[in-house]
């Protein structure tokens, strides 16, 4: 059974003019579907404005979906009452870009770690302490940290505490939102290896949201590429990076510098910028920048269809 399933999910934000009238909408997520496989690392990659972060937050319930369905462990969760929704959060967790920032600065770290267990379980003090102790060990932090405040430990340690807090609930699926953004390369490597070891120890399934293709490539088994609210291509990581089919995916892959290889910036072919998300072009969203665009592309929006080994949404895939 797939732990997490998303069906044609849409998250639209209203654009309001004078007198609070709705004059348009920003279709941050516009019809996204995917199924998560147990134990995998599923990557959502795209540039700013593609909707990947909004998608992650919508799955968590931070944003209300405008349409579509979210299924978690066989249960439909997008339309649940708030109390039931909260119960789901025990198994479906979300790690912020800086997990350390998720700690209340006025709470001791120990209190922050106890909190998820207080909310969701009936464990007594001793049982909670035991669980927290073992998780601290898994993330590599000493017990003495429990009495400290977040500002008294380093940024890297705050990050680990933030992750430990999520893991106290033994979630099944964790959504990682830009976990390496802003980090130095050497720190990034440490963080990624921590994620890998946690996945093994706790048998987690990850949804990894990132704009950094190198990180996606090294962590994910399957990848979905998003552009302006839709998935334009998805498939096994190898296939996406070695044989991209959608023109946008090709441009993304072409933009990655290859140390030791040819200079990619010399002849980088993708021009211009993504169009205004409040004013999307007709038909295929990418056609304004696509070298292959034809009338068909302006008339008809391509649908994500299977094309082994993955899927592509393009009228003229490679």
């Amino acid at each position, binding site marked *: 059974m797939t732990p997490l399933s998303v069906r044609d999910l849409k998250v639209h934000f209203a654009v309001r003019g004078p007198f609070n009238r709705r004059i348009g909408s920003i279709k941050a997520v516009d019809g996204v579907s995917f199924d998560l496989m147990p134990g995998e690392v599923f990557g959502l990659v795209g540039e700013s404005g593609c909707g990947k972060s909004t998608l992650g937050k919508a799955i968590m319930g931070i944003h209300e979906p405008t349409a579509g369905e979210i299924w978690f462990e066989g249960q439909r969760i997008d339309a649940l009452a708030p109390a039931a929704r909260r119960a789901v959060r025990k198994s479906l967790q979300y790690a912020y870009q800086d997990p350390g920032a998720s700690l209340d600065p006025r709470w001791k770290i120990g209190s922050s770690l106890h909190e998820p267990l207080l909310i969701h379980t009936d464990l007594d003090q001793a049982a909670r302490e035991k669980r927290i102790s073992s998780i601290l060990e898994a993330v590599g932090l000493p017990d003495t940290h429990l009495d400290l405040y977040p500002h008294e430990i380093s940024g890297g340690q705050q990050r680990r505490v933030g992750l430990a807090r999520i893991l106290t609930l033994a979630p099944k699926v964790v959504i990682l939102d830009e976990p390496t953004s802003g980090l130095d390369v050497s720190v990034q*490597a440490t963080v990624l290896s921590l994620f890998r070891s946690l996945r093994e120890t706790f048998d987690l399934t990850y949804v990894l949201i990132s704009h950094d293709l190198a990180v996606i490539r090294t962590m994910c088994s399957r990848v979905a590429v998003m552009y302006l609210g839709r998935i334009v291509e998805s498939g096994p990581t190898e296939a996406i990076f070695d044989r991209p089919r959608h023109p946008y995916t090709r441009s993304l892959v072409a933009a990655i510098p290859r140390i030791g290889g040819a200079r990619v910036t010399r002849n980088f072919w993708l021009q211009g910028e993504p169009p205004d998300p409040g004013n999307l072009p007709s038909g295929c969203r990418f056609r304004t920048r696509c070298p292959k665009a034809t009338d068909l592309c302006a008339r008809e929006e391509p649908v994500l269809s299977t094309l082994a080994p993955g899927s592509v949404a393009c009228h003229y895939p490679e």
Partner: protein
Amino acid sequence: MTLLAVEDLSLGFATEAGFASVLDRVSLSIERGQVLGLVGESGCGKTTLARAILGVLPRETARITGGRVLFRGADLLTADPASINQTIRGRAITFVPQDPFTSFNPVFTVGDQIMEILKWKSPRASEPAGHGWLPAVVSRYPADRKRADLDAVLELLDTVQLPRPKQMLRKYPHELSGGQRQRLMIAMALLPGPDLVIADEPTTALDVTIQAQILGLIRRLATERNVAVLLTTHDLGAAYEICDAVNVMYAGQDVESAPVDRFFAAPAHPYTTKLLASLPDASGTASGIPGEVPGLITPPGGCRFHPRCERADGPCRDARPPVDQLGGGHWVRCYHPHGGIR
């Protein structure tokens, strides 16, 4: 003559907790038209070095404790500040910042801001900037020079591939995308006709496809106009793409410098090799560097990398390694470099 030569520059900041030694005898040199990459992770001092060259360090807390910054043969550190303000900063040396959004004044159109710069720093200006006794707002902007400047602006906006330059000038900064703002900053950096452009992490805040476009643009313009570029970045890929040579800094010390191909093919310093090894690659194996960047108030002695280096021994702790020329423009400061002789 070398365009810019930084020689053994040392400086630090006075903080509540003590004196932070942010730069420790750093040297670098750039020739005309060369693109030099200054690579290092956070806290290595590359932005401080850029600011020192521009002369915009915070006056109250920064203290230069040694070294020279020679630009076209003259030491910028000892020159008259007024003359630097008029002829060097914003004219011969210009700056492209990391975050273009906060560099713009949000309540003026970008056109107003660009023309204001040209009022003072235009290559066509006869008097040096700030020469008159009238305040800036009421001084004259000769009409014919203004027209010539405006033509130059429109032409340059076209060169940086900004669509519809005339309409662009009427927009406010928040109406533009990150990529457009950065192109504008590049245009503004080139308008005064500089010899050297310092670009401080110009693509860090941008998406990967826009980054590729901007990097390509910088490279092309540098070559076409024979403008030297000092590019600071923590992104080794960006350095590989457009730099002629790369310098590596760690915790305020410069540790290695080489022409770009040699740098990536045969790095000598252990920090450089570890840095290259931490880049995530297809196989998924990337190693980090154990330990943390040291604080700069009581930094490690000698080579500041020694606490994290498996090759470190006595000499590394006692004294900073001298420059070791490895030939072909490649030098390293290490007692135990890779492929090394010592």
